[in-house]
């Protein structure tokens, strides 16, 4: 099962953007730009005041955006973006509390109506997600669950089963953030999981440049790049910053399309 829709030997390029960082207009611009540069899916981070799975870069952006951009706003952003980019696949990356506040059923209905492709709830492991999964299945919005180096094979099977879009493999034990090199055991880990599932596997956490993306593209169906983009926006959404986003996006797109 392929995650990229651009044919064989192409790995999906999945950039991550914190919605509302530093404002919602910028997020829409980032979406346009990233799609122009060949993103296959975009992960939109729903801002949360207490992003405990995130490292300082995303944590800070998320905390700031939380005061201006709610889950409701993010759903509206997706809807607007899809008016321009019909059929494009947006994945929401969120903490569970904003969903619970909205109500799981209400959230599922709204996500479906906005055209959200899939949702990843970072602090909702499959063990706690029975109601959520039912709600999502009913409206045909797909689910993504995380697997990580600490996930036992015994846990992995339900994770793969419950992930209806793809499995998101966390490349290292830790929080989000850029790093210099990938874990030396990553490819063995991903191969081990491949033997147990046909679902696509995207890999994220710490992939910050074309070199690392190329490495990950050898073994994954999708490459998620988050903190590296968010970090660029720390200087503000200047033209120079958006140029840097474009350069990085090209570098990663090239790495994910021409890997061998």
């Amino acid at each position, binding site marked *: 099962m392929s995650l990229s829709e651009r044919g064989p030997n192409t790995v999906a390029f999945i950039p991550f953007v914190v919605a509302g960082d530093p404002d919602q207009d910028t997020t829409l611009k980032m979406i346009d730009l990233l799609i122009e540069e060949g993103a296959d899916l975009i992960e939109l981070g729903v*801002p*949360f*005041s*207490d*992003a*405990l*799975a995130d*490292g*300082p870069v995303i*944590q*800070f952006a998320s*905390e700031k955006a*939380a*005061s201006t951009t*709610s*889950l*409701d706003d993010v759903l509206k952003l997706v809807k607007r973006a899809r008016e321009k980019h019909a059929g494009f696949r947006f994945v929401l990356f969120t*903490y*569970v*509390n*904003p*969903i*619970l*506040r*909205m109500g799981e059923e209400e959230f599922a209905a709204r996500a479906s109506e906005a055209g959200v492709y899939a949702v990843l709830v*970072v*602090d*909702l*492991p499959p*063990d*706690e997600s029975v109601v959520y999964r039912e709600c999502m299945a009913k409206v045909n919005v797909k689910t993504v*669950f*995380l*697997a*990580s*180096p*600490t*996930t*036992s094979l015994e*846990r992995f099977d339900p*994770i793969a089963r419950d992930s209806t879009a793809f499995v998101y493999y*966390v490349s290292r*034990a*830790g*929080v989000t953030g850029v790093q210099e090199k990938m874990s030396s055991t990553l490819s063995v880990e991903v191969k081990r999981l491949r033997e147990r599932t046909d679902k696509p596997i995207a890999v994220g956490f710490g992939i910050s440049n074309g070199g690392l993306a190329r490495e990950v593209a050898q073994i994954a169906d999708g490459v998620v790049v988050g903190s590296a983009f968010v970090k660029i926006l720390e200087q503000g959404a200047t033209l120079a910053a958006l140029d840097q986003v474009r350069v990085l996006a090209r570098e990663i797109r090239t790495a994910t399309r021409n890997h061998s």
Partner: protein
Amino acid sequence: MSSVNRVGYFGSYGGRFAPETLMGPLIELEAFYSRMKRDAQFQAEYLDLLKTFVGRKTPLTLASRLTEVCGGAKIFLKREDLAHTGAHKINNAVGQILLARRMGKKRIIAETGAGQHGVATATVAAKFGLECVVYMGKVDIERQAQNVQRMNLLGARVVPVTSGTQTLKDAVSEAMRDWVTHYQESYYLLGSALGPHPYPEMVRDFQRVIGIEAREQILEAAGRLPDELIACVGGGSNSIGLFHPFLADTQVKMTGVEAGGRSSKPGEHAARFEGGSVGVLQGTQSFILQDQNGQILNTHSISAGLDYAAIGPEHAFLREIKRANYVSIRDHEALQAFRELARLEGIIPALESSHAVAYAMKRAAELQPDQIILVNLSGRGDKDLNTVLQQGASS
């Protein structure tokens, strides 16, 4: 009654809402703890340390002048302030450090609000020669400077947390980030009856000694059970430790006291039941202070240890089944109780515990002289002198 049924749940509260990377370590901890819970040698070692290192049992003191001034029920104080390091936090720290050692962990991570749990953790880490890192909000570091110095003396590294509200909640997040990155060699010694399963259950178990002793002591001192138990509730470990052994004694009323802060406006208190609603924060489902979009609200309390946006899940359950009830006490009432207890009883209480004392004083006046209130005096107030003296100068 209040046992954990569905994995890690108390009724519909609790659970394990953790990022996947922490699920493995949490499941491992749960399995290990459930073995140790039944391990006679482990339990004996724990009890021995409570006796020879912590100095238990802690006394039960009749507060006779306070009783007289309030003019109602007799007030007894369970003196956790006399435990080693000056608060109940040490009971849990001792229990968990034994777990950490048996799990072969070399490095201890903790969060702290008022600094009492940080000091307790630094203390047991020093005793067993383990490396110790304590995360503490920058705001708390400023208002609890003395405890920071104590932790440094004990050889712990105190890491200031500058994100978010720079208080306990942010320290918990930072400790979890550390744990998720260093889980192989590190043990996360969480200080309250909070967080993902198995912490709320485990911390409660290690704090039950408070209630077990208090029950025996009041029977000996008064020949009967108390009419009401009163304890402050931040995360809720001292209160659940006192309450739990009395759960079957249905004639004993239980009251938890939250921090009412400056006012009932959002951001000015930490009264989760009065001002909050059900949600998930830092791994557990309980009552939390949040806005209409599910963002966690800022909290305020004069006592750093009660200044937290979520309440331990077992308290939410006890409230739901009406086995315990919860009230709140404002900053100024706690300050007044702090001073009263010092003057009338020669005991300087922690500002956290002062909330329980303040409510006990109100409550005693409503009850009859033949009735008994048992207050958990969860810690001593040396750490709060600066805060109290500053308030005195400005009021």
